[in-house]
Structures are given as structure tokens and as C-alpha cells.
């Protein structure tokens, strides 16, 4: 069989062909929506038309079989239309209300998790991890799985004060949303890279490797036509390794997972925020990372108990103050929490007012 004629620079298919007729008709005319359950909502148009959305979880790393399975369901109930969300969930879209119950039943029967709408834990934005990336200090898919096993009820039913957006990134490149998430995990190293002087001259561009280091820890080693790393200055970020493969940094015993909390992206109320460090390091303990799961659970539960309605994690922490956050969660406060990077000064307490 010969390969067909390639085309270039055509861009993606036009979106219109993928929009269900009810959307084409009511495009831009939606008036309001209602959350019918943890995984079902209805949007109502100015015209009175309705569209129902049933959302189910996806592990994101999916086989073609999975895609075919959801396609079959979409054919059966949704005239062949479906979409994915910005957090990797699958959305079935129907205009025919009578199909809502049968669809949900079939989904449940097939073991799909329906949920993630509203003030709940939704699916995680995450990354490649050990499945595909050379840079990963931890696995992403595994962490997502163990977290969501733990928080399953918060996806399918239980409510929280507000949305809680979790994310995982397997290294400090943070492909994803870790830097602005309610609670997020990031894979970290704890030892400087060990220069491989044999490979550096061939595989690495010296100036750009030196330039990649945020702390200026790398200098040329002209004798070896290689690089030197000042261990005192290195904070194991791995950026040099992104640029130069001959600076391996992975270390099974010392790599692990850091937890950051309190970030968000929406401009609602008090605006987008960066996540802040709360656990500098927890061990990589696959396959189920119990220390990490417990830590996240601890934070989520304290939040659930203490926050006000509509208050995101970061808003809650800012209201009570970080000193209180550490008290309530019992997370030990260490030197690692005190910023000494670019904007350190802005994060120190320059006031005589704080809580005991």
C-alpha cells in the first residue's frame, strides 16, 4: 500500500466540522448553565436550546482502544461528537435530555468515573515522567494515579470550598501548571550533576551550558575542554542537564518530590498566584508514593475543614497567614522554605505583625 500525498502547513482541521449541531446553532448564545451533579451540567441558550455535558475521567495516557471505546459511546448517545477538556477529561455532549440517564448508566457500567465539575478535585495537569522524558526526577502518571485513587470521592461526589487544581511535573522545567496550582508536585534532585568529561566536548555547547545555570555554578574547565561545577553554588535544578546531556543529575536515593501549594491562574477575586513550597522533599517511593499521598491528603483536608466557600487554597492560606498554615498542617518549617532565589527579599516578613 503506498503512502498518500503529504501536505504541509495546513494547520489543524477547522473546528467547525467538529461542533455538534446544537453548538453550531447556539454558538456564542449561551445564557447560563447549571451543575446537575458532580459530572453533569446543562448549558441553556438564549434560544432555549440546551446542551448537556457528561464529564468522565481519563488517565490521559490512553490507548487507541480507549479512544475507540469513548468514540463508540459518543456515537451511541452524542451523534459522534465529544471533546476533551483543558484538564484531560472527556466530555460527552448531548442535546437530547432523554439520553442522559442511559449514557451515564453505560459509562458507570463500563467503569468510567463521572465527575470533576464544580468545586471538586478535577483531573491533573501533568507531564511525561518516566514514561517518556529524559529529564524526569519522578514519574508523573504514577503520581496522578495514586493521588486520584485517594481523592476519587472528591472527583465523583464530595464537594470542597472551591475548585482544587492539582498538578504534577516530573522536573523543574514544570511542563504543566505546577507553578500556579492549588496543590502540585514537582520532581526534584538533591545532588549536583556529575560532569562526564569524555562526552562534554562532543555533546555540549560550553557557553550555552554555562549560561543555563541560574546560580552561575558552572565554569569552563579549559584543560579538560570541559566544565566544572561549583557544588557550593549548585541547587540541583537540572537546567544544565536540559542543555547538556553529559551532565547527568539523577540520583535514585536523593531524587524525590516537592510539594507546592496556593497557586491559581484565574483573575477572580485576588488574581493569579504562584504556588509556594511546603514540602521541600519527600522520597520517591514507587509504585504508590505513600509519603506524598499522605502529605497532599493532609493539606487538602485541613483546607476542606478551614476554608470559606469559594476560597481557593491560596486565598485561604493568605487569609490565615503562612505561619498559621504551618501550624494547622503541622508541616515542619525548614531552611528550604526561606527563599534565597531571585525575589527572596520580597518574600521575607518585613513587618512586626505575625501570628504566634
Amino acid at each position, binding site marked *: 500500500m503506498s503512502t498518500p500525498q503529504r501536505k504541509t502547513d495546513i494547520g489543524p482541521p477547522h473546528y467547525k466540522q467538529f461542533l455538534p449541531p446544537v453548538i453550531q446553532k447556539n454558538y456564542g448564545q449561551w445564557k447560563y448553565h447549571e451543575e446537575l451533579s458532580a459530572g453533569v451540567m446543562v448549558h441553556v441558550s438564549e434560544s432555549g436550546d440546551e446542551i448537556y455535558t457528561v464529564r468522565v475521567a481519563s488517565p490521559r495516557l490512553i490507548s487507541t482502544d480507549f479512544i475507540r471505546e469513548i468514540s463508540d459511546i459518543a456515537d451511541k448517545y452524542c451523534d459522534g461528537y465529544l471533546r476533551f477538556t483543558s484538564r484531560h477529561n472527556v466530555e460527552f455532549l448531548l442535546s437530547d435530555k432523554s439520553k442522559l440517564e442511559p449514557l451515564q448508566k453505560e459509562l458507570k457500567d463500563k467503569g468510567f468515573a463521572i465527575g470533576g465539575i464544580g468545586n471538586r478535585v478535577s483531573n491533573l495537569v501533568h507531564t511525561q515522567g*518516566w514514561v517518556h522524558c529524559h529529564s524526569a526526577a519522578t514519574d508523573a502518571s504514577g503520581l496522578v494515579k495514586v493521588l486520584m485513587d485517594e481523592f476519587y470521592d472528591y472527583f465523583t461526589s464530595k464537594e470542597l470550598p472551591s475548585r482544587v487544581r492539582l498538578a504534577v511535573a516530573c522536573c523543574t522545567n514544570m511542563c504543566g501548571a505546577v507553578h500556579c496550582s492549588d496543590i502540585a508536585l514537582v520532581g526534584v534532585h538533591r545532588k549536583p550533576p556529575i560532569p562526564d568529561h569524555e562526552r562534554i566536548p562532543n555533546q555540549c555547547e560550553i557557553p550555552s551550558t554555562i549560561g543555563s545555570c541560574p546560580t552561575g555554578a558552572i565554569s569552563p574547565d579549559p584543560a579538560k575542554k570541559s566544565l566544572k561545577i561549583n557544588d557550593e553554588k549548585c541547587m540541583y535544578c537540572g537546567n544544565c542537564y536540559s542543555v547538556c546531556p553529559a551532565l547527568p543529575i539523577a540520583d535514585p536515593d536523593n531524587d524525590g518530590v516537592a510539594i507546592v501549594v496556593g497557586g491559581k491562574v484565574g483573575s477572580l477575586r485576588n488574581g493569579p498566584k504562584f504556588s509556594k513550597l511546603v514540602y521541600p522533599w519527600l522520597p520517591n517511593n514507587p509504585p*504508590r508514593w505513600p509519603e506524598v499521598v499522605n502529605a497532599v491528603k493532609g493539606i487538602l483536608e485541613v483546607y476542606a475543614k478551614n476554608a470559606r466557600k469559594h476560597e481557593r487554597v491560596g486565598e485561604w492560606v493568605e487569609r490565615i497567614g503562612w505561619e498559621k498554615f504551618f501550624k494547622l498542617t503541622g508541616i515542619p518549617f525548614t531552611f528550604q522554605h526561606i527563599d534565597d532565589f531571585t525575589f527572596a527579599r520580597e518574600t521575607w516578613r518585613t513587618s512586626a505583625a505575625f501570628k504566634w
Partner: protein
Amino acid sequence: MSEMRKTPLLDDLEKGPWPSFVTEMKKAAAKSEMSNDLLGALEQCYKDKKTHWKHGGIVGVRGYGGGVIGRYSDIPEQFPGVAHFHTVRVNQPSAWFYKTDSLREICGIWDKYGSGLTNFHGSTGDMILLGTKTENLETIFAELSSRGWDLGGSGSALRTPSCCVGPARCEWSNIDTLDITYSLTEEFQDEMHRPAFPYKYKFKVSGCAVDCVAAIARADCAIIGTWKGDIKIDQAEVQRYAKNGMDINAEIVNMCPTKCITYNGKELKIENEDCSRCMHCITKMTKALRPGGERGATILIGSHAPFVKGAQLSQVIVPFMKMEPPYTEIKELTRKIWEWWDEYGKNRERIGELIERKGMRDFLEYIGVDPHPAMIKEPRRDPFYFWTTDELK
């Protein structure tokens, strides 16, 4: 087909209620040697607590500088199926709407020439076809492109733009996120497929300040819908919210960041002049409150992940821009921005970092935008600023 890899550690991740990626991998492994070896390689990572991938070399399809991420195993003898295991980034349709027939077509191609594993979707937005061999790339591309699909971005290039569901299924969208995304993607095909930038450049488009695609945190250029005008209030619906148990003072009035809402138990009032259009009240009382007046977008520039000096959020550059096809204004602005970046940007320097290094004035003057208080949270503290000679005596 060889025997299924033994994966005692990973097997544990088939337990528990959340759908299992391991199960997905096994489904693929049943059909694909690559996926079977991927399972084995991943089990090895779980055992060794470290990655077994090497840096990717440059692989791709003819005429394109990106769209494929090269990947090689560091233990190919043990797992020959993933000796090469490159991923193909396919440009998703706006807002991730699909028809099942197209999905099945892609599945067919991928089962035939790839691992049968995918990511729906990558965190930039692409459909990710996870893992194939170098020799299959051209065929895969021909199969895809002949059916109307193209590759997404990678490397120092424009990355695949993405957007929220917007007008397709959301009552709050102030702009046509899907159309803008499509139009920008089509306009800048060359910039996406032939990396020529100092570093990556991402667009994300959200219909309103809720920002359901995290544009403000994850796109060098965030296009976020907004309005100029008064919030329309349906007082009857306000009463209905109250009756249904909403504590309007606690949930709305007190949470309004600008404290421009008052509620006397009967009527809700908004001092629109003081509203910052944050969307809080509108999202919590969607039946009662709606934006009013002229629609457009705020353009924010510069966000990126932590390297090198720390993560940045995007900052307001154009407070309000009308957004109508063919979107000439944003396209021209973008070209100007790229010109400036091209001129001054260092290798691996994101636009946000360059603006910080060169200063906002330089940037704004080049792209022809006047200073505006919306660009800042607060004015500078230190009286250390520049003057141009024509400002002096």
C-alpha cells in the same frame, strides 16, 4: 509477538478506582511490541527510581523543524522496542472538539505505525502520539496530513496555540476563542514548523478572566476576553439565588475584590466604575449577572516556567483590543513582538525574560504601545528611571 513484560510494581497501579494508565499501556502492549517494551522499560524505572531515557536527537519530517520529540532508551538491549521512541505532536482542533470518525482514523494510523499509545492531550494542547520509530515518521506524517491533520510545534518555535471552550459552550466568553486560535495557527504555520525564534513562544486564548486554559501562567501571549461596560443585573434572579440559600453578602459582596457591590436584601447594586471585571460575582450568580457593553480582549505577554530566574506570569500589554476576523491587530502586534525578540533576544530567552532585561519602555516603544496604568500593579518604588533626550532641557 513476544511475551508480555512482567510488571509487578506497575501492576499495583491497576488497583484503585481511578482509571489506570497501566491498564492502557497493557492494552497497547497486547498489540504493539513497542508498547510492550515501554511497559518493561517503565517497570525498570520504577525499580531503579530513575528515568531510562536519553536526550532526544533531532528527528522529524522533511521540511519541518519540529513537531516530533526524539527519544532513545538508555537500555535498548533490554528494551529494543523503545530503542527509538519518538513522539509526534499533532495540532489539535480548537477547544479539543472531535468527531469520532476522525478519532478512529487517527487510531488506525497510530496502531499501524506507532505504539498505539497517546496523550489526549499534551499540556500545551497537542494530541500526542506517544512513541514510534524514526523510519515511520514520514509515513505517519503523510497519512495524517493527507487526512487534514498537521503537526504541532516544538523547539524554538511557535508552539501549538490552544483555547478554552469559549463561545462553543460557555456563557461568559467575550471573544471567539476557537476562531482566534484557528486563525492564529493558520497565519503562523511557518513560525510553527520552522523553528527560528530565540526560544519557544506560546499562545493561549481564554474567553474571560476565569482563564480555563491557564493562559496567564503558561503562554507567552495570553489573549483573555473582557468587556467595557456595565454588568447587567437581573434582580429577580438575584432573589432566586437568595431564596435558594446563597448568602449573598458572604459569597458575593464580601468576596468582591474591589468592594463595589452592595446588597440590601432586596437589590444588588454594582458600582461599575470600580469593578475590575474579575468575574467572581458573575461566575457565582450566572443567571443573575452578565457582562455588558463592548467586547474585546486584554493581551498579556511573558509567562513561562521557572527557568532561568523564576517563573513569570503574563503581564498586561494591551488593556483592550477588539477581536474581529481577520484579527489583523493581534497578528500585526505579534509580528512586531517577534521582530523585537529576534533582534535582542538571546538564545533560550523567553519574551518575558527579555522584556525584563531590556525594560518595558524599549519593548512598548518598539511595538508601538503607549504606557497605561493597567500595565502595572503599582508604580516603581525607586526613582531610578531613564529619560530620552527629547524629554530633557
